[in-house]
């Protein structure tokens, strides 16, 4: 076993140098980590599992990578090896991302972006890496299904002043403030996405399309008390039937409040905020607008 292990590691090293990531991973996964003949310490097992998962992830192979990350998750709780723990966290977040569990992935990316140390073991943690993790957290949150949980993570990210320096900040701000996103903004955001985040879903829409349509639908529900599906389709840039289908699913999943009149082809949005509460919110908006006018006049010396 010893000789086989050494040969495998050597071959994997060669494959890795030739960037044949999956071949290298397969070579290493042939090592029997649970063999009864030779005892391996937990740290070694953990390092191998994480290394194999990372190699598979180089080829975006979430399925095989997940198998090894699951093995690692039993070992990581007892590990004091900070570099390995960090690599494990990054692998886990990427697997969730690849599996389109965007909200969970976002939370883990955000957790990684908050690492305080700048040196873990011999590994240097530079600001770019943290910024990448933060950007990944924002991207995944935006791609996640619209609803209360996503709103909470959006609020956390929006209030984190590091985000205001990210290139992705303008779209984060519009999504957080529940403003309607126009096509050019969505296209610009799409440029930054990874392949799996642009993959087509069974209903011929990409993950991004669905996320944006749902977001715009939620934004429209804050703007209008009701709207015809004809108009809504135009606003969202999709067919009226499609708009009706998505709206009905969101209402059913309790991610939007409203009712659909199919005879009139109208959707009536509901806002469970009390009227008196809404009145106060309108007054806040009015007073802010008045304050802005006064500030504007003061600036012009009027």
């Amino acid at each position, binding site marked *: 076993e010893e000789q086989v292990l050494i040969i495998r590691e050597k071959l994997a090293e060669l494959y890795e140098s030739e960037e044949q990531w999956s071949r290298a991973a397969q070579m290493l996964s042939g090592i029997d980590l649970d063999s009864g003949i030779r005892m391996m310490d937990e740290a070694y097992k953990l390092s191998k599992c994480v290394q194999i998962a990372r190699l598979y992830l180089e080829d975006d192979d979430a399925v095989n990578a997940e198998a090894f990350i699951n093995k690692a998750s039993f070992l990581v709780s007892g590990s004091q090896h900070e570099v390995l723990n960090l690599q494990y966290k990054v692998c886990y977040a990427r697997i969730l991302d690849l599996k389109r569990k965007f909200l969970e992935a976002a939370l883990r990316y955000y957790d990684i972006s908050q690492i305080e140390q700048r040196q873990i073991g011999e590994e240097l943690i530079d600001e770019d890496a943290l910024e990448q993790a933060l950007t990944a957290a924002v991207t995944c949150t935006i791609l996640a299904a619209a609803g209360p949980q996503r709103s909470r993570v959006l609020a956390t990210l929006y209030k984190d002043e590091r985000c205001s320096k990210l290139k992705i900040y303008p779209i984060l701000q519009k999504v957080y403030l529940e403003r309607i996103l126009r096509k050019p903004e969505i296209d610009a955001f799409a440029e930054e996405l990874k392949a799996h985040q642009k993959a087509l879903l069974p209903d011929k829409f990409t993950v991004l399309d669905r996320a944006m349509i749902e977001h715009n639908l939620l934004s429209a529900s804050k703007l209008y008390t009701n709207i015809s599906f004809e108009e809504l389709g135009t606003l969202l840039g999709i067919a009226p039937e499609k708009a009706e289908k998505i709206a009905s699913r969101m209402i059913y999943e309790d991610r939007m409040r409203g009712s659909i009149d199919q005879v009139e082809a109208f959707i009536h949005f509901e806002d469970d905020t009390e009227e008196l509460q809404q009145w106060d919110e309108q*007054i806040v908006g009015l*007073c802010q607008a008045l304050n802005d006018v006064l500030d504007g006049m003061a600036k012009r010396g009027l």
Partner: protein
Amino acid sequence: NTDSIYHYDESAQTKFQKEKQWTNDPHYFKRVKISALALLKMVVHARSGGNIEIMGLMQGKTDGDAIIVMDAFALPVEGTETRVNAQADAYEYMVDYSQTNKQAGRLENVVGWYHSHPGYGCWLSGIDVSTQMLNQQFQEPFLAVVIDPTRTVSAGKVEIGAFRTYPEGYKPPDEPVSEYQTIPLNKIEDFGVHCKQYYSLDITYFKSSLDCRLLDLLWNKYWVNTLSSSPLLANRDYVAGQISDLAEKLEQAENHLHTRLGPMVLPTQRKKEEDSQLAKITRDSSKITVEQVHGLMSQVIKDTLFNSVH
């Protein structure tokens, strides 16, 4: 010179600590000055606790018969009224925090503790009195501050009280009546038994030039919030609780009356007692109603101002 109060004179403080002037006069400390920063932090912390009592410590110094509160920090403790000496859970935290502060150049010592009484007013309960007496034995000078976050919202100003306890067995001279406040029926017992064991201090506030500048910049937040708030909406639960407390008190007064109806003529003493009890209930009732009417007035003004434009 508004900022001179923020300068910490270590030698003066050490001298004051040595002289221990407060030991000769149980009523020595009469005034409290609280910084805008400390007040804001205490109120925000008290409100974050909702209906659960929270507690924290205050840092500052003394100046003659005044205790000056410069800053405050929350303790990881909740439910101060449900167990004796809740702060025992936070001793380690307190020591760490105080030491770290000294390292960071903050020289002020801890000069007191604050905690909240959500919805039942600012006074010291039996548990609070024993905690404060303990503090005054070993940590002088030490102040007890109580904040009622619920009444703060409904009254539109901070409901806060600062207290010092008398030594065990001390008989205070007759106290000037402090401002009347409604004590809920389920707390009256606790209030009545201990209200002679402590006295309240006058509270004034101060802010730095920077505070002035920041608060000016936030001025529009203030008037926008004033115009867009609805006391009637924000305090529904609290008012409902107050009215139900009032009903219980009325019931109790009525029961007293019936049980007393034996000898037809109530002895003058008892009559006076009934009156004072009913008088208190009447005051509570008119206090609640006045706040309700104020709330309604603001709603009508807002309706006139923002809705009747045609």
